[in-house]
């Protein structure tokens, strides 16, 4: 059969679905009728004495068959309407579709990432609220606010908020006497631990799924011209100018690039040195600012001194300024370099920004964990850390809004009216996603110190979604270097897991494991480390209780961990060997295909 005839056959079978509507209807009715007549003949063959009842049975069957055919149809229609109703319930579905259609899939990936982060924070909010906050509010209201509510609290988090359930200090570790006794200490510990473990599992799952889809299957000779040509054209972009940009970019990528000479190498080295130097400088600056004793704890002494309180905002403002300015400097630095591949440029800028942000966060965590707990003048050091995180998040949010206004709106005005050559600003996906990751890292760090912090994060993400969408429609154009959105998506998820979540988790783990909780406030007052409540709890359990047994003999014994590591290593080795074997199989099959087709050509001649 010629290729053309083959196409026609496939088409008439199942591709041209619309034109086969009449066919499906008659088939269904005929099928039903056939089944009914079959049953009828079988009944007659049985020849029962109860002929009247068989007659009514057959009549009922016939009536049912008359109902079945439209029943199937209405069931199908019900399923379709259920699917469309579900689409309405999923939050932001219509908006996301519109964004994807107008700006392409890589911009859409930013908004999908935002939605995903929102889910994490909503879950954390619900869990914390139900298990920790509500029992605390209901059973032991602990509000001893020294000062009344002033407006500055929203920014600094101290004063009125100091003793509320917003921060660690507002919880106490009593065992609430009710029908099943509710141990607040255990509840606090396990809620935070369970949430972090679930987050980790979810992140690992998403990361491995994404990695498998987007990286592993790409091995082999697909990374080259064939892919770019055949799969990369984005049909969903309709703007003529954007299409022209895409065409130009594709042409540039398809042309062969040469020249990796010494000059380029030395420029790269210079750019890297400058970037790392800037990151180190910012880290050192924040360190000295943070440990400046005059700024740090002055507010603790005099709660009614507004000026001292406002000075606590200095550190977050400096951090946000660094986060704003240094990436711009990085993009200036990257202009002196030249890259053969625009994707390499994006990856390198992502790496540099991540180094900057993580070094800032690292310095802050180091300061919080080393200096604050030992300082006597701070009353409740966990609340202090919670308040610092709160301030950082709020100021970051304000700067984000300012950034939208100045960075995009004003830039658009300048680009179109004053300096025509600048043009409309591009929507920089990498920078925006890294900002989201930074904020989420702060939220994860702050979960132990301030259980209701997700409230702010949820509000913040909601507002940012709508502001970014409006700004996108009014001010920006889609980024020029699209393509490989799926791979960059994997990189972002991996970044969210590796420096961000792992860092936050290790900080919380270090706090719980080895730091002495403050003696006057919080659910863990009086213990050596918060982890000791587990010891106390297992001690208080009756002898031979299974939880105690598991804890003593499995989780605390080193032999268990050695065995587990050994088993995991052996399994990894086996899986690696299987992969190698499969690669060999693929190679053999490819050679087989070539041989078979050569054979066919030879025999047909």
């Amino acid at each position: 059969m010629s290729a053309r005839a083959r196409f026609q056959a496939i088409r008439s079978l199942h591709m041209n679905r619309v034109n086969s509507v009449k066919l499906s209807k008659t088939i269904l009715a005929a099928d039903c009728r056939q089944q009914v007549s079959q049953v009828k003949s079988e009944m007659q063959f049985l020849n029962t004495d109860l002929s009247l009842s068989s007659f009514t049975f057959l009549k009922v069957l016939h009536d049912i068959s008359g109902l079945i055919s439209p029943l199937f149809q209405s069931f199908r229609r019900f399923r379709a309407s259920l699917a469309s109703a579900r689409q309405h319930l999923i939050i932001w579905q219509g908006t996301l579709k519109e964004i994807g259609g107008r700006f392409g899939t890589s911009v859409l990936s930013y908004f999908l990432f935002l939605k995903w982060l929102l889910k994490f924070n909503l879950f954390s909010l619900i869990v914390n609220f139900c298990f920790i906050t509500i029992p605390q509010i209901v059973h032991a209201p602990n509000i001893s606010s020294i000062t009344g509510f002033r407006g500055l609290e929203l920014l600094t988090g101290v004063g009125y908020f100091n003793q509320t359930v917003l921060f660690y200090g507002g919880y106490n570790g009593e065992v609430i006497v009710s029908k099943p006794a509710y141990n607040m200490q255990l509840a606090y510990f396990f809620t935070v631990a369970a949430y972090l473990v679930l987050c980790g599992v979810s992140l690992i799952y998403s990361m491995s799924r994404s990695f498998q889809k987007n990286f592993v299957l790409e091995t082999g000779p697909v990374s080259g011209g064939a892919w770019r040509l055949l799969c990369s054209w984005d049909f969903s972009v309709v703007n003529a100018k954007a299409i022209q940009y895409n065409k130009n970019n594709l042409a540039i990528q398809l042309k062969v690039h040469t020249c990796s000479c010494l000059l380029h190498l030395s420029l790269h080295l210079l750019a890297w040195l400058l970037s790392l130097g800037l990151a180190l400088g910012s880290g050192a600056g924040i360190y000295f600012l943070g440990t400046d004793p005059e700024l740090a704890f002055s507010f603790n002494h005099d709660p009614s001194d507004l000026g001292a309180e406002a000075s606590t905002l200095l550190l977050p403002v400096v951090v946000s300024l660094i986060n704003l300015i240094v990436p711009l400097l990085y993009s200036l630095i990257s202009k002196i370099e030249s890259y053969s591949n625009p994707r390499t440029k994006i990856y390198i800028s992502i790496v540099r920004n991540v180094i900057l942000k993580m070094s800032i966060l690292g310095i802050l965590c180091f300061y919080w964990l080393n200096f604050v707990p030992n300082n006597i003048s701070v009353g409740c050091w966990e609340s202090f850390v919670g308040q610092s995180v709160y301030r950082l998040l709020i100021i970051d949010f304000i700067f984000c809004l300012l950034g939208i206004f100045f960075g995009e709106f004003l830039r658009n005005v300048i680009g179109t009216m004053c300096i025509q050559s600048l043009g409309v600003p591009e929507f920089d996906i990498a920078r925006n996603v890294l900002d989201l990751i930074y904020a989420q890292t702060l939220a994860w760090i702050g979960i132990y110190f301030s259980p209701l912090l997700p409230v702010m994060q949820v509000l913040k993400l909601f507002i940012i979604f709508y502001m970014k969408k409006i700004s996108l429609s009014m001010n920006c154009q889609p980024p020029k270097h699209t393509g490989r959105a799926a791979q960059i998506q994997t990189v972002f998820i991996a970044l969210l897991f590796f420096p961000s979540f792992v860092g936050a988790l290790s900080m919380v783990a270090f706090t719980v494991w080895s730091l002495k909780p403050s003696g006057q406030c919080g659910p863990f007052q009086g213990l050596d480390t918060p982890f000791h409540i587990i010891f106390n709890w297992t001690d208080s359990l009756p002898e031979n209780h299974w939880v105690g047994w598991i804890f003593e003999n499995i989780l605390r014994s080193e032999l268990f961990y050695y065995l587990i590591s050994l088993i995991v290593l052996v399994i990894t080795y086996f899986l690696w060997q299987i992969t190698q074997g499969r690669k060999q199989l693929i190679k053999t099959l490819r050679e087989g295909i070539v041989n078979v087709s050569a054979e066919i050509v030879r025999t047909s001649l």
Partner: protein
Amino acid sequence: MGGTSSKLPKDLLSEYQELTFLTKQEILMAHKIFSELQDRENGPYSSRVSMEKIHTLPELKSNPFRKRICHVFSTSDMKDGSLSFEDFLDLLSAFSDSATLEIKSHYAFRIFDFDDDGTLDARDLEKLVNSLTGETDDTRLTGEEMRQLISNILEESDIDKDGTVNLSEFQHVISRSPDFVSSFKIVL
């Protein structure tokens, strides 16, 4: 007089919903747009819309493959690329969100097959490259670059080494590119 916008009967709507990958809103929107295109035709009521009218749609206006798309989805006997309403629905269904990878790759292959012979040979690939890189002089590839590029592509995707890319090889390349499903999309 004003446009005679006929309403789509309900049973036809539900049938179209079952047989295509489109939702109800998308089918209604498609019907509205198609009726507007029909109303602009000067002649008597004709059920097919010519290719030029389809090309005035904003989604297809600047698409480099608009001619091929119309040819592929048209069931007209005169091979002029005109589309009936059901052809139009077929088009939107293949380019919709929920269409499967198989259908999309099948239609992508047919769109890229400029000479309709069932395989992508060097001439098809050359036309493909030219339509994707633009027509200005500095973006057009030179003859030498074109030959090098096409031989690279054939080396990578031609598994049975017959000098052309057939449907299975094309689908093999597509299946390893996770971006394809999301970029092969046209939304009204």
